[in-house]
């Protein structure tokens, strides 16, 4: 049986949802171990076992949470040398991709990132990666061992296997010079009441709204519907709204029941993060906007005129 590792990312001591999703596929591929590093690792072992990890390799050294990427890279590299896994799966999240990138460079193995699936084929691993903005799917075979694959959030449904893991304390193996990029403070910015990635309804806005002063129309409709507000990369880059609202390849992946895209053209960057939505409604002035070709309902019109009227109609219907 191939030896499959899942890197269990901890965010301020809490296991990330994407890490748990990976086990659904991992346990179909071989014997699964999880590696959990930093404060909260031992605590996370129970959930990791319940989702299919046979063993959880843990170390609670505070340096894993305090310093960017390097301590975790050191520990993983030492563990890989001892244990020789065949495949290491990471979530495609900002923190995991930094660790995976360093590790792949140190081991000289390279990696496959932004994958939506990985399969065992002829004794090796083949990952499926959205290509050309999701219009195509490329299959990549990993040539090196261990294969390192980074998987997009929401690629698999979390499923409980009801197992229990053996918890194994491992050495931190942090190198002398690896305590460098230090996180000295963490600041939170106001977040929406409904979490974007969990919302059943998402209303997103893009450049077509004209300017940041008009973005309240998006929030008002999202609030009236009890959903969350999102945004395209273009308006996040332009500083209209915080990065936490970005939907797309680099931002969040969402799969709500209804996705309303207002003034978003439908660049590949964006659509890869929302095309799994059950129903897509797009409002755009440009008849040729790519988003209208993938929407269940496309309205050619001015989002600035339609959004407020829609908000009123929703409120009236809900009796708000």
């Amino acid at each position, binding site marked *: 049986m191939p030896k499959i590792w899942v890197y269990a990312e901890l965010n301020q001591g809490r296991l990330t949802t994407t890490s748990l999703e990976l086990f659904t596929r991992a346990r179909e591929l071989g014997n699964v171990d999880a590696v959990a590093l930093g404060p909260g690792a031992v605590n996370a072992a129970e959930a990791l076992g319940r989702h299919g990890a046979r063993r959880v390799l843990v170390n609670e050294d505070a340096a894993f949470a305090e310093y*960017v990427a390097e301590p975790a*890279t050191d520990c993983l590299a030492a563990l890989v040398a001892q244990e020789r896994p065949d495949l290491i799966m990471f979530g495609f999240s900002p923190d995991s*991709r*930094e660790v*995976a*990138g360093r590790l*792949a*460079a*140190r081991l000289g*193995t*390279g*990696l*496959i990132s932004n994958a939506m699936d990985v399969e065992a084929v002829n004794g090796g691993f083949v990952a499926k990666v959205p*290509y*050309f903005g999701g*219009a*195509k*799917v*490329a*299959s*990549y*075979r990993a*040539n090196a061992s261990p294969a390192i694959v980074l998987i997009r959030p929401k690629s698999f449904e979390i499923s409980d296997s009801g197992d229990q893991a053996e918890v194994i304390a491992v050495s931190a193996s942090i190198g002398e010079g690896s305590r*460098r*990029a230090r*996180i*000295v*403070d*963490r*600041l939170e*910015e106001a977040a929406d009441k409904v979490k974007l990635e969990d919302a059943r*309804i998402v209303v997103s806005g893009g450049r077509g709204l004209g300017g940041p002063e008009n973005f309240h129309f998006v929030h008002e409709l999202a609030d009236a*519907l009890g*959903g969350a507000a999102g945004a395209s*990369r273009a308006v996040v*880059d332009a500083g209209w709204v*915080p*990065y936490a609202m970005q939907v797309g*390849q*680099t931002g969040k992946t969402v799969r709500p029941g*209804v996705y*309303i895209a207002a003034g978003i053209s439908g*660049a590949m*960057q964006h659509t890869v993060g929302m*095309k799994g939505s059950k129903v897509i*409604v797009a*409002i755009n002035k440009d008849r040729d906007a790519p988003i209208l*070709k993938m*929407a*269940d*309902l*496309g*309205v*050619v*019109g*001015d989002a600035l*005129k339609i959004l407020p009227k*829609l908000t009123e109609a*929703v409120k009236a219907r*809900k009796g708000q």
Partner: protein
Amino acid sequence: MKIVVTVKQVPDPNSSQGLDPDNTVARDREVVLDPGDECGIEMGLQLKEAHGGEVVLVSMGPERARDAIRKGLSMGADRGILITDDHLAGADALLTARVLAAAIEPESPELVICATESYDGSTGMVPPMLAELLGLPQLTFAKHVEIADGRVTVHRQTEEGYQVVEAATPSLVTVTAGIAEPRYASLKGIMAARSKEVKLFTFTDLGIEQGEPSETVESIIDAEARKSGEVVEDDGAIGVAKIMAVLQAAKVV
């Protein structure tokens, strides 16, 4: 202070793009300096203006990527390095990082600035690999960068807000597109760029031996496309009515 900014020429994000028959992105038309890299160059120029020194642009790409470097030079960067080679096509992230590292290392910069990710690939794997190969700490997703007393401090964008991350120089920083509004090249800048040096290297010049690629493309197939639905022209009323009908069918209102 010597600052290296990595730059890439990408298909123009504002033009519609096709794929060549071999499923590589058709790069011959409408290529531009990656807009994310323009922000990196701007950041580098601002740091140079505040602290003195030099901004060096490093790129891997075909000969015509010289235009992308030239654009950065006309913004005010001092010189450029372009690594171009017959074996470039299909270079993966690790090979790209090895090539860039080999070109950057002799420069011994105090700061390496990369965009968080390229516009065309958007996977952001080269910067952490480059940091590892250069033996530098990485301060990533920066939406604010400061340098003082041999230390670099960034505001690292996160899902919840941001972190304040610090390290001693030399360091590698990746910047988000929102970090700084790139300046326009002045006519004077464009003229001056013509005489600025752009050094060309091949893989052999840098001692890079191209081994087996770390991954091989087995197939590229069409993704399951979403079927397009109904498209209506709004007349002031029908748009809202149609959307309400969809929301009711989905049982969300």
